[in-house]
């Protein structure tokens, strides 16, 4: 694929902290699509997003957005990105309209009508001070800010946490609305995987600082499965085939990335179903044992 057509192109990115390392992550997001970033807490989702924004410095690898290096062309790259952090932070004592008018000059494409429109739609109290907002309101405000300067790539870090299901649906609809423009792309991390199951074109799964996969959602849905059966049916061979196993007193659940092969291998008595993103997240890498965890 032509690299210029990628909204995001991450190659072999590493970051080392005390006690946590993000290992060699590579992924591509073509323009015009939504990518979901999933993984348990501590997987490296926020670290990866912060590296894209150069809020933290990478130790290795390359990150390109719209074909531009995110360090060399930092100002241009950032002007074309909209970012909604997991904990939006703005000056606590400023009112929302003060905040908006202080941020606006930094963006050549700031669209004040659009901001007012979104603020109205989200019922944002523009006169209220930032610190007086609830978490959900802070997220809505950050979202209105992120969507008011014609961003071509919208990055959202756990945006649906703290939002009720009605607004979550609304958010997904809004993201799909953005995608009506084929140049716009969205990357959002979430542990509410149901949100991503239908809306995301691509899914990237991180665990313990490593990339497990980054692929089209359709492929994930078609290839990953859960195998269930009685404990006594789980022999060493079955164990080796599975990519994660949870054993309970009444039976076992195992994860496979090759559901068709699993159907051939495991015969009668086993139940084989498609895996949801949640199944994948919960079961992947789990070592089977008799503990009730």
């Amino acid at each position: 694929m032509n690299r210029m057509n990628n909204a995001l192109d991450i190659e072999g990115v590493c970051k080392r902290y005390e006690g946590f390392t993000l290992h060699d992550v590579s992924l591509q997001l073509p323009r015009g699509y939504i990518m979901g970033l999933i993984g348990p807490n501590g997987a490296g989702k926020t670290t990866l997003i912060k590296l894209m924004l150069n809020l933290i410095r990478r130790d290795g690898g390359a990150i390109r957005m719209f074909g531009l290096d995110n360090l060399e062309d930092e100002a241009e790259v950032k002007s074309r990105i909209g970012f909604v952090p997991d904990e939006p932070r703005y000056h606590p004592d400023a009112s929302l309209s003060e905040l908006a008018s202080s941020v606006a000059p930094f963006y050549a494409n700031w669209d004040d009508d659009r901001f007012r429109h979104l603020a109205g739609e989200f019922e944002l109290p523009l006169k209220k001070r930032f610190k007086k907002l609830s978490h959900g309101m802070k997220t809505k405000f950050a979202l209105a800010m992120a969507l008011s300067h014609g961003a071509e790539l919208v990055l959202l870090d756990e945006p649906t946490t703290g939002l009720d299901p009605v607004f979550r649906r609304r958010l997904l609809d809004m993201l799909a609305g953005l995608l009506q423009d084929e140049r716009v792309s969205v990357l959002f991390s979430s542990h509410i995987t149901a949100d991503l199951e239908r809306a995301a074109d691509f899914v990237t799964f991180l665990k313990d600082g490593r990339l497990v996969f980054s692929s089209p959602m359709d492929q994930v849905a078609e290839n990953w499965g859960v195998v269930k059966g009685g404990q006594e049916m789980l022999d060493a061979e079955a164990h080796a085939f599975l990519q994660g196993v949870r054993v309970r007193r009444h039976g076992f659940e195992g994860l496979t990335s090759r559901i068709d092969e699993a159907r051939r291998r495991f015969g009668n008595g086993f139940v084989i179903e498609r895996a949801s993103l949640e199944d994948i997240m919960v079961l992947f890498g789990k070592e089977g044992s008799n503990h009730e965890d």
Partner: protein
Amino acid sequence: MRVLAPILCIDGMYSRYAAAESTEPELPMRIVISNASPDPIYEQILQQIRAQILSGELSEGDQLPSIRKLARDLQISVITTKRSYEELEREGFINTVGGKGTFVAAQNPEFLREKRMKAVEERLAEAVDQARLLNVGSDELAEMLRLLYAEDE
């Protein structure tokens, strides 16, 4: 020329898409997606549009919603919708005209009849499979079929 808008039904909620963006009168195109279905979503869309073309509910020249619009309306991903359209195009049911949109293709009547006969055959094969499971013989099944036919006359 007719422009089609999807009527949505998701998880039992039923809502009608209001045609606001297009000036062409939009005709309903019914697509019902079930999360509980074992069929992947792209397959569900494919089957339903195909069925509407085969039944004549959609006819030659009718314009389908754009991939991105349909994806948004159905609250599913762009790639999934794209896959359904690509498959329909491969099967010759629709044509995409660059810059203009996607349209129901001209259907060859004989070809169409053949396709529909094939669909009948497939359903019958399914019935035979079910009958075998219950040890229902071919005579008994033929009798059932005869009775069903008679019912409608």
